[in-house]
């Protein structure tokens, strides 16, 4: 029992650390990608190629003056960024970061908890993620913050529906809600054992899901909650110092987690082509699988940035039209299509 606890603690600790590390370096990557796409150099002062930039940014955030507006609701003002950070970190426990490791005759799973309602848990975490923004925006007692918070909540609720519907089609196909099982079902691939990733069977579902993921993370082209041309800074207008840092950081963690969820649900998770034809032992395959998963995640994080620096922001009514009049009917159509094909193939 104690051994089990220690192993879970190590796993939780390392997932926590890796999440923070990846999020910190996503800020660096974002600036480098932006620089690359705009034909600039980007940050290059702190260390070689500027790789210590996240450390410098973090230091700066901590040393900046902490301002809590007098007219704000102080408790909720502090609670806002805490909640944003907390809900961002929560979904990481469900992701299968790799296959099992066999040490001695013990089998260690690289997933912290394989709940049998896995996807729904992720969905629940996403749906309570809006509280951090709403509470922070309201507690600031500033009209721009409030407008940003209200936009954020309306946007997230609208896109949650389409996201849920797109996942339902996937669940019909896989027949399970557990992320661990969904990953395991996509094992193999090109090579001796022919098997395809879910994206091949669910291209429409994947498209809807990734669009909704952009909206849920408040990333461009859907970053209306912090639209600076209309709302100064949106829900975090009044925030300064590390509390602002938490909000910005939570966005990068959300991006990391949603990239991990997309990779797991639609792109085979820790599986890679030819994995059973290499003739390596189980543990080596598992470790390579984890590295491959992080490769996929990195690609999707890059994809998030790529879109951000390519496409301008939507107008708010366009955003709502896209969510309610295009994505939701498409997702319902996708469910019908999946059900029909499933019955015909039976």
């Amino acid at each position, binding site marked *: 029992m104690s051994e089990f606890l220690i192993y879970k603690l190590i796993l939780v600790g390392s997932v926590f650390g890796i999440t923070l590390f990846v999020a910190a370096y996503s800020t660096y990557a974002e600036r480098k990608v932006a620089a690359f796409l705009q034909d600039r150099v980007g940050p290059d002062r702190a260390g070689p190629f500027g790789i210590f930039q996240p450390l410098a940014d973090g230091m700066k955030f901590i040393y900046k003056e902490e301002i809590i507006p007098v007219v704000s609701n102080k408790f*909720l003002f502090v609670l806002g960024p805490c909640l944003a950070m907390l809900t961002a970190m929560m979904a990481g426990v469900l992701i299968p970061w790799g296959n099992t490791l066999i040490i001695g005759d013990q089998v260690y799973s690289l997933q912290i908890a394989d709940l049998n*309602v896995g996807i729904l848990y992720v969905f629940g975490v*996403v*749906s*309570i993620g809006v*509280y951090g923004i709403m509470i922070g925006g*309201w507690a600031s007692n500033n009209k721009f913050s409030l407008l940003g918070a209200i936009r954020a909540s309306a946007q997230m*609720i609208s896109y949650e529906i389409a996201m849920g519907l797109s996942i339902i089609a996937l669940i019909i196909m896989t027949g399970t809600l557990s992320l661990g099982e969904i990953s395991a079902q996509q094992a193999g691939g090109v090579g001796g054992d022919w098997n395809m990733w879910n994206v091949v069977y669910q291209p429409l579902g994947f498209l809807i899901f990734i669009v909704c993921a952009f909206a849920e993370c408040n990333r461009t082209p859907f970053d209306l909650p912090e639209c600076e041309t209309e709302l100064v800074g949106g829900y975090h207008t009044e925030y300064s110092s590390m509390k602002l840092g938490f909000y910005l950081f939570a966005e990068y963690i959300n991006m990391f987690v949603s990239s991990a969820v997309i990779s797991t649900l639609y792109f085979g998770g820790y599986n890679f082509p030819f994995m059973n034809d290499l003739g390596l032992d189980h543990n080596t395959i598992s470790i390579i699988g984890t590295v491959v998963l992080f490769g996929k995640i990195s690609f999707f994080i890059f994809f998030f940035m790529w879109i951000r620096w390519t496409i301008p922001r939507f107008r708010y009514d366009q955003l709502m039209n896209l969510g309610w009049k295009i994505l939701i009917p498409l997702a319902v159509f996708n469910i019908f299509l999946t059900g029909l094909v499933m019955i015909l193939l039976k």
Partner: protein
Amino acid sequence: MTLNAFYFLSFLAIMSAIMVVLSKNPVYSVLYLIITFFCIAGHYTLMNAQFLAIVHIIVYAGAIMVLFLYVIMLLNLNKESEPHKSNVLKFAATICAGLIMLVLIGSLKGTENMLQQQPAAADIGLVKTLGKVMFTEFLLPFEITSVLLLAAMVGAVMLGKPESR
């Protein structure tokens, strides 16, 4: 362990439910209500009903309460704009709430025997079990509920439509 968790969750749930009523600020009331919902979800988990717990969080804490908060923030309710309630209204509300409590206590009294007869199976709250029961034994109530929801949805759309003239 389970018993301690039960007492802790119950205490938290009842305290925050009381705070929902006592809070002067409507935003605080909503936040306490969210805590109450999380406690109830914890109770579901203790009873091995994971699916119910997570759906409870998604639907109540994640959707309905967000809309509540949304409306309250948009209306910007505060003490000055609160409508004054007459004593007759308060009296009527107290009687209604008391009657509802009587009904709830009455229904609790009937369940004493049921608990003894059916020991809960470990997999009673899992998605598979729930789905099987819902689509076989309780198919008709399930379908009727969905029709009810559809009617509510159509009604909401009708109310939200701009009047054409």
